[in-house]
């Protein structure tokens, strides 16, 4: 039936608003639904790590990063060197810096030391949320993340959601939450995960590495890959098309990162805690080789860009670009020996920072650093 132009315009406006409301309702209905095509193994890791952090009442050391921190930091070494209980909350580099802020907000207390060896991708992140993060948060981040967002950030998040995901979430026939994409193991919920991790660690003196699973977690939240270097790492080193150059030096650090990292800094200051941003562990290969001057300059440029934004990148970067034989399966995942070596270097740096009580900025003596690193690598690889 034909209407007047004015009625047509009003109906169009109503339709526009109607579609908007319908979409938001559909989105909210899909949140947390088992019909989303996401595995819950990251959530399982989060469940236990969060539990472990909540158990510590005295001033603690918290590690917050992507998986380079989870595979590459040995909390036992840190606890002994730093003389404080340590919890490794590092999880996945796809988890947005705003998510890390919320974790810090939830867990940081007076006297805590928050150590953040962030992957380089954090410094390049765009304003928009990455797809992988969006999927994780839609699947399991509603209560712990989305509900805490401001209205503007929430709308920004909804915008980043691929529209097809909402539709698939509504119509997909799946009705169970899988822990793993290949094995149909059901997610038992946070309490079930915590019980399983505690049982694994109680049954054996030392938890056995069993892949990307909460079953590999030790009581501090680390995953120690007590395996040899996989072919995938040898490929990364030997095949040019597989080189990961880790980061490009651009003219500016992601404003999204700066905004949220500064919020973390402000939070720490407000709570009487301390934050240390530091280097991730990387493989020494053609993509990033800190024995070469051009890569040393790249690193120094990154550091100065951050410094220009008022953010210190602490510690000597030369100690964190390691021999590929210390890595397990990806360009960021150390195996156990590598994790011990890296953690010793990190602990040394944190102790020095603690003594200095100030800025970590002093020029890197590359030749000396590389000599020391070479010595320690030989020690570790010769074991």
């Amino acid at each position: 039936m034909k209407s007047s132009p004015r009625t047509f315009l009003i109906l169009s406006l109503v339709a526009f608003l109607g579609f908007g409301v319908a979409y938001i309702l559909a989105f909210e209905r899909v949140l947390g639904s088992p019909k989303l095509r996401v595995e819950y193994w990251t959530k399982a890791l989060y469940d236990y790590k969060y539990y472990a952090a909540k158990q510590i009442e005295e001033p603690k050391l918290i590690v917050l990063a992507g998986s380079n921190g989870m595979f590459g930091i040995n909390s036992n070494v840190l606890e002994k060197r730093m003389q404080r209980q340590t919890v490794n909350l590092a999880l996945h580099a796809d988890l947005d810096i705003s998510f890390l802020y919320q974790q810090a907000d939830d867990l940081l207390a007076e006297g805590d030391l928050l150590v953040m060896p962030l992957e380089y991708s954090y410094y390049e992140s765009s304003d928009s949320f990455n797809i992988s993060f969006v999927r994780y948060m839609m699947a399991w981040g509603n209560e712990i993340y989305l509900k805490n967002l401001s209205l503007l950030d929430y709308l920004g998040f909804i915008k980043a959601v691929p529209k097809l995901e909402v539709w698939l979430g509504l119509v997909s026939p799946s009705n169970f939450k899988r822990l793993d994409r290949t094995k149909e193991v059901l997610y038992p919920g946070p309490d079930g995960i915590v019980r399983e991790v505690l049982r694994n660690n109680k049954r054996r003196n030392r938890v056995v590495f069993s892949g990307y699973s909460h079953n590999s977690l030790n009581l501090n939240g680390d995953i120690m890959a007590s395996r040899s270097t996989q072919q995938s790492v040898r490929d990364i080193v030997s095949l040019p098309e597989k080189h990961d150059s880790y980061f490009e030096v651009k003219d500016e650090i992601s404003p999204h990162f700066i905004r949220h990292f500064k919020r973390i800094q402000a939070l720490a200051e407000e709570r009487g805690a301390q934050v240390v941003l530091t280097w991730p562990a990387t493989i020494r290969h053609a993509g990033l080789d800190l024995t070469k001057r051009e890569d040393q300059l790249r690193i120094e440029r990154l550091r100065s860009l951050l410094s220009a934004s008022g953010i210190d990148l602490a510690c000597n970067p030369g100690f964190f670009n390691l021999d590929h034989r210390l890595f397990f399966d990806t360009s960021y995942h150390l195996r156990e020996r590598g994790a011990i070596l890296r953690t010793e270097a990190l602990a040394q740096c944190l102790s020095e920072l603690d003594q200095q009580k100030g800025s970590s900025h002093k020029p890197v003596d590359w030749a000396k650093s590389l000599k020391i690193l070479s010595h320690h690598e030989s020690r570790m690889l010769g074991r």
Partner: protein
Amino acid sequence: MLFNSPIFIFVFLPLVVLIYALLNRGADKTLAKTFMVAASLFFYSYWNPIYLPLILASILVNFFIGRRLSVSYQANKESANGGRKRYLLLGVFFNVGLLAYFKYVDFFIENFNVVFAGNVETLNIVLPLAISFFTFQQIAYLVDCYKEGARQYSLLDYALFVSFFPQLIAGPIVHHKEMMPQFLSQTGRGVNWEFFAQGVTIFCLGLFKKVFIADTFSIWADAGFDSESPLSFFEAWGASLSYTFQLYYDFSGYTDMAIGAALMFGIRLPVNFNSPYKALNIQDFWRRWHITLSSWLRDYIYIPLGGNRAGESRMLVNLMLTFLIGGLWHGAGWTFVIWGGLHGLALVAHRLWSKTGLTMSRAVAWFVTFMFVNAAWVFFRAESLDSAVRMLSAMCDISTVRFGDIFLGVMQYYSPVPLPSLPVASGALIVSIATLQHLMIFGLVALTMPNTIQVSRYILYRGRFALSFNLRWSLVVGALFFISCATFIGDSHPSKFLYFNF
């Protein structure tokens, strides 16, 4: 200010429409026009205010030269007055000089350095927004004042004609004869709701074309054209076809938004696109693509050069020259010159073919035309000649065809559950099944469906998709606007229109 930015859609446009409608209700239109000129200049300078004096100076100089030409035309209708010609040349040189300085000086210096092994520093001049468009419009005005003694307008009307914001930045290139009568007849009528509803519909269609269709194509086009590693056959075709459709949806989307916004003020802008990729020959293509530019080139370059009045061979030379200039107008670079030259050659070839009396089937004619246009766009888009040649070579290199990759891609994309055991198809970052899907859907829409100007009944159209103010169309407009907003709201930087660069 971009048409696809929230500030324009939700603040600037509604406010200007409202205030203009209120001011336009009275008998005296001066206030409404003054407001529209001020709003348009604000719109222009919102991007970068430093070029506001430039457009103001351009308006003033052209207005006074035009007035002088018109007055002298009335006074000396019969005489070929040398003084008048000098004024025309002064005006044309002023306009071409501005364009040459801002657009071509650096190009000239670079080429000078190459040819004479010189070391002259480029000036790194930033191209003022819209200069190519308002320069052409005003040259046309001066020529008409000289030849026909165009009617003398007030400075306010003339400023409105040049600066009217819906068409200011990237056209359509409007002609004073089309626009001035409309501005002059804007009596105190308030809002024309029929025009307004039609304008909103066209604007929403254009917005959807830009932010949902064109900006998606741009992902694959940019990835392909900016790739430093060699492209495979499928990647090269995916990137070039993506650019071909990106450019169409981007520029025609922009034009739809311009037409829609102007209609909200009761002004009809000329049609600029009429399903160009349906063209069956290259002449047909130029009657459908950027129609206002083609008309301008015909009226103010081709015909003054002699058109077809001086014999066949001279006509072919004129065609080539016109399109070389058209190419250069788009950008100061050899890739644009080559693009223009290719189109000139194609028109020459078409002309010669027509004279043979030979025919080809519609399907073959369409295929040849489309393939030529697609290949020529490679020069238009590529950053350098090398890059264009690499892209065209990859499009011809069937040795890189891997049908296994297509199969893997399809399996990965359409599988209802993740298939981790399948290797990732090579080239998945540049073109994917999503590219193919987007090309299939929106390519077919461009090639087989009526265009937005038709369905919105901006031109005569009585097909089954014609706009009617009913519930079904309300849902369509609401849905398109919602999808568009969901696509662009929250972006810190709305994507620029491709023709803003020209």
